């Protein structure tokens, strides 16, 4: 094992091992950071930017999930600047698709909604883009509602890295980016999907849900997937 070293986070000394990300180190030290795209055990992608931190001597903010620790790093996770940016980011996420919590199956069971409360989002300053998005209800067990998708790609990664089915990915870019199954086919036509439901469990919003979930009654179990990942990693 590589020799560990010390870094400071919020003026507190913390031990770090080469190859670890700042987010991993924060987690071990019980320093909370807002995350949305990250899911422990899946490869980090830095998609949501909520985990931004300040590093002394670095002019730009960096996402903790994809930034590796380095000796003598001095990191700050709380500042007015960071709070301002996090608020802005969560508002931008809300303005991109149609997140109407009151009529969403995930109401009160949604990581995005929870995050908005935590970050103190009381309104959205940016114009809503209100795109017209598809709802794919062709799968026998699950529904994909693109109106609620934040493109965190947790579903894509769990499908390829844990289930190994690799049926999902992102198509297009910017405003047109969408999660697809196979060759952008109806999910129900997918010949690769094993219907394992891991994507549904880790989806932080109401974008992926079981098709029998009544409005506001959704129950997801991301812990089950987290546990599965842990067991696989521990496998001798």
């Amino acid at each position, binding site marked *: 094992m590589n020799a560990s070293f010390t870094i400071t986070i919020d003026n507190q000394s913390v031990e770090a091992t080469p190859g670890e990300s700042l987010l991993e180190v924060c987690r071990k030290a019980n320093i909370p950071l807002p995350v949305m795209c990250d899911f422990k055990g899946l490869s980090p992608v830095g998609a949501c930017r909520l985990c931004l931190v300040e590093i002394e001597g670095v002019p730009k903010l960096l996402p903790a999930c994809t930034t590796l620790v380095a000796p003598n790093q001095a990191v700050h996770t709380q500042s007015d600047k960071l709070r301002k940016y996090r608020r802005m980011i969560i508002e931008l996420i809300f303005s991109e698709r149609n997140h109407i919590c009151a009529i969403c199956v995930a109401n009160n069971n949604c990581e995005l909604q929870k995050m908005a409360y935590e970050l103190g989002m009381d309104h959205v300053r940016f114009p809503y883009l209100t795109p*017209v998005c*598809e709802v*794919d209800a062709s799968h026998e067990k699950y529904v994909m509602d693109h109106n609620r998708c934040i493109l965190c790609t947790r579903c*894509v990664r769990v499908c*390829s890295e844990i289930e190994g089915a*690799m*049926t*999902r*990915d*992102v*198509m*297009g*870019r910017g405003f*047109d*980016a*969408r999660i*697809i*199954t*196979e*060759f*952008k*086919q*109806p999910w129900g*036509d997918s010949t*690769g999907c094993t219907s394992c439901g891991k994507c549904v469990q880790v989806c932080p919003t109401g974008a992926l849900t079981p098709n029998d979930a009544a409005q506001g009654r959704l129950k997801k179990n991301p812990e089950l997937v987290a546990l599965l990942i842990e067991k696989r990693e521990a496998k001798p």
Partner: protein
Amino acid sequence: MSSGLNRLTDLEKPATEDARLKRIQTALKRYDARPDALIEILHIVEESYGYVPLWMMALLAKEMKVPPSRIYGVVTFYHFFSLKPKGEHTCVVCTGTACHVRGSQRVLNDIEDEFSVRAGETTPDGKLGLQTARCLGCCSLGPVTVIDNEIIPKSEPEKIVALIHEKAGI
């Protein structure tokens, strides 16, 4: 761009095989069908067909063992690739070395002049998309032109222009 899902039937390979398909197969061999050669292969497909047909993506997914969703993601991420032929009718002029030596430039110039369109563009009425490719893999037939799905060997400028008039009705 984002709406509309594809159906299983869109993935079926057309019955006709031609030099373009052979070219892709040769390229697959050359790259050993390595997944990391995906972009290179897709470039050759785009060049040869003027777009990336869905059935071709299905073929590549199988041969290169790349997940379908990944291929579709790549094709839709880069503006260089298109999912549909760019005009109602397409004309690809091969400007590879062999075809160039045999006069493909004249073919291209005549088409550009006659239909007021440049290579890489589509006529304003959307009737004709004009493209160039570098070697379609049948050099002995050069200069080679492909109009829609027909390969025209030993292309003569006047004949090609006449054929486009006829096929595209312009």
